[in-house]
């Protein structure tokens, strides 16, 4: 497999370290449902047979964490993005969502 690292360009997968599913966000530890939330976050996986969004670390490269969308049926890479950008966008979206909810 080869990933198009947003910083380094196309590199072989052997430069990267896998972490796992990027679907879940870390729950709020102070929520009343924190225990259940953390159990689901840490242990449960959709593990779907199709496109999988997952975290990879460019360990032998720029040290960026990446969110890679990859088809686990045929190993084709659909997209590669910086994890930081994805996380910030998710936070922005969540904040945005909360605000608009607040408005209605």
């Amino acid at each position, binding site marked *: *497999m*080869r990933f198009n690292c947003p910083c380094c360009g196309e590199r*072989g*997968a052997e430069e990267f*370290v896998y*972490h796992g599913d990027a679907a879940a966000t*870390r*729950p709020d*530890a*102070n929520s009343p449902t*924190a*225990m259940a939330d*953390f*159990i689901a*976050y*840490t242990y449960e996986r959709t593990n779907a047979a199709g496109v999988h969004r997952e*975290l990879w*670390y460019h*360990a032998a490269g720029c*040290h*960026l*964490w990446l969110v890679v969308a990859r088809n686990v049926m*045929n*190993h*084709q*890479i659909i997209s590669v993005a*910086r*994890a*930081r950008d994805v*996380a*910030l966008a998710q*936070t922005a979206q969540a904040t945005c969502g909360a605000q608009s909810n607040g408005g209605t």
Partner: protein
Amino acid sequence: MPFQRHRMPVGGLIDRSRKIRFAFDGVNYAGYAGDTLASALLANGVKLTGRSFKYHRPRGIMSAGSEEPNALVELRTGAYREANTKATTIEIFEGLKASSQNRWPSLAFDVMAINSLLSPVFVAGFYYKTFMWPAALWEKLYEPLIRRAAGLGRASAQSDPDTYEKATAFCDVLVIGGGPAGLSAALQAGRSGARVLLADENATLGGRAIDDGADIDGLPAAQWVSSAITELASLKNVRVFKRTTVFGAYDGGTFGAVERVSDHLAKAPTGQPRQRLWHVVAKQSIVAAGATERPIVFANNDRPGVMLAGAVRTYINRYGVRPGQRAVVFANNDYAASTVASLNKAGVDVVALVDSRETPSEGVRAILNARGTRLISSAVISSVSGKLRVKGVTVRTADGRTETLACDLVAMSGGWTPNIQLTTHLGGKPVWLDAIGSFVPGKLPPGMSAAGAASGAMGLRDALESGLASGSAAARAAGFTPAASVVPRVENDSSAFAPLWRVDGGRGKAFVDMQNDVAVGDIELANREGFRSVEHLKRYTTLGMATDQGRTANVNALAIMAGLTGKPIPETGMTMARPPYTPVAIGAFAGHHRGKAFKATRRPPSYAWSKEQGAVFVETGLWLRPGFFPRAGETDWLQTVTREVNTVRNAVGVCDVSTLGKIDVQGRDAAAFLDKLYMNGMKSLAIGRARYGCMLREDGMLMDDGTVARLGENHYVVTTTTANAVKVSQHMELCQQWLWPELDVQMISATEQWAQYAVAGPKSRGLLQRVADPAFDISDAAFPYMQSGVISVLGGIKARLFRLSFSGERAYEIAVPARFGDALIRRLMEAGKDLGVCAYGTEALGVMRIEKGHISGPELNGTTTPHDVGLSGMVSTKKDFIGRVLGGRPGLIDPDRPALVGLRPVDRTERLRSGAHFLGRHASATAGNDEGHMTSVAYSPSLGHWIGLGLLKRGPQRTGEIVRAYDPVRSGDTLVEVVAPCFIDTAGERLRG
């Protein structure tokens, strides 16, 4: 034996001016440069080359390429011996030695040929039905017998003396195969300016263009090939790799290829490896790997002298060898024309063409008519006579009449199977093409195309055309503009074909997979027993599992099974291949990474000095750390380590701790960030102070420990254990970039920047004062326990000083830029001579930390919680941190969990061993009584006996209790007393000075 009596007087691509001497089974022969072992043996009239796997049937040379199932030899001798090497792929070199295998005492007379007589018993699945009683005899009798008979050749008993290397090549267009289609594709893509890599498994390019003896542009094809090679060589953007097999297609346009750099030479030239493993990264790829001819399945079709017709043409046209004197050609297709033509050219007497079809095409008949060669149509060869070589064939016509023809060569052709393996490695499913009776590539992986015979374009003109078209298309897809292509003037040879998969009714076994001795009867049996899917068939009969990968067998087998079940062939199964396309030496995959170079070695700054001192080194991950420093007169390691510990406890010792991970953490949110990472608080750490810290995994288990020192308001330096440095740094990056990207934190590893030495012992400050520049006050008032600061040493060398202690003594860690690490340790040793300084290694370090009850690797084993190791008091309740929530699960706060205790032998003379399990004092040794295990032990010089740390159920509540430390794998069973996990200076007075 007359020299090369089967060599034609002229012809072939061999170099007749260079005679090469070689030996087979101890007999000396000669061939010419350019010969393969197979062609040279045939030139010398050697037909019997090996014995088959199961029945030990005599076997000869069947093909002229890597699909060869029969002619396997042991090549070279001694440490260079290489089993199961296909004679058809070995280029001969001066002094080559090869021998036949799987026979005893000799090839011509093989005792194990008795298996052939027992063949009615040794059918597919035979083992599964027998050898079950008595059960005990399997390992004692049956299996040893089976294993004695197993295997073909012998692996060398010595380490492989050759070298291997790996390399990466990038290209726009990878062309796999240098036959007519591949050459055309490479030319066409290369002319566009694209970076082209052409790889061919043979020593010479040209493929069937040369083998078949055809004409292109009115000239012998060999001339067209050589002009193509010349043009490719002139293109700077084209690289041609000969003797290079592309063996695997992997994800993302990556291919594996092996270049046999020196296999054709007696010895690898200086500086050259035996083989080179290439990672080829290609934007586009063209599979032009040609096709493999299929045998026809008839009785005794495995006898030496029965050859593939295409191979017969190859031996004649490429090598100038006559593979026989009197040939019968047996075919179901029109390639018979060129076979007969080639045989005629070579002066071989063609007894007859046996064609299974009613009427071969006009072209075939014309060739036959030219010399009045006999045609027997609507006929088959039903069996072969002769044992060590073909003596004749029985021909049966459609009306049932039989006739015997004397001959010493059978040239058979059941049609051609495109070499589509690489197109299926990534899951591409092939499709069945009736016209050629085989599978051709279906939907291909992105960027891949197929050309020539591999794509099902069987005619020469079609092959050239498809090569040119693929070359253009690939170049275009890679962003280049190819010129219009011009197809050379060439005729398509007729590829007309009518299926004939098997001939029934002959006497003798009819083989489908020659190498694994799978005969028609085995497939019939598999069908009868329900092993009908292609996977079951292969696994039950071992069909296609031999070193030839079943290249000549698979399609025939499928077709025969389809015939038995009445299902169409594509429904019966598919031939999906997995890498490698041809077997690849394990050494090539390993490359340079063997022996000491298996993994990189990391050397700490004191390495050279330690080596001079005669240190014994230990591996810690990739690091090589001094374990202890024996001195003259010390007879065992324990004596040395004891001396080192005593020196630290009573004077001063120096230990290289540079291997600890050091991460510089800066930024406005550095404190907040570290608070999320560590289970204890870091925000409150004052500037200039250091603190012990632990990180948990999200599941609440301890991940790592270390120190955090605050150098400035927004500047921390944290340490990790040596073993976890990489893991922790990666984890911190994940936290920074993914979990909390909003924080302003910058991190960089400074592990390698600093040579860091622990200076420990009551005289440590005294020693340090001799190297620290006087401007810096390191008195206890100014530099108390857990202080940190930036100082300079030895006249201005910047340094970091931390007052930390792992040993329990007054101790410091002094860090200087790594280039001064060597000089500093020398200086410390020199300066501390009168203080009695010594260097100490990881062993003494370990002893002292156990004496103090500090946890380390064996306690930080990924399954312990802070509570388990007595650190629950450190866990913050005021903040969120990784591992906090799940650390509260019932299983992790169960009071029954084993927790950290100290242990000492009741009989103080007894030795403790880690890995022992704890049992109640009077409890029996059963699993139910298992209460934990000893994690670490040491001989404590301070106490004069062995001590240990362990994880014991409810341990801290059991102080004073005596338990068994049970160690049956080392015959140990010791009574130990549970004590607090700190053996010396429990109040920490020595630490603070």
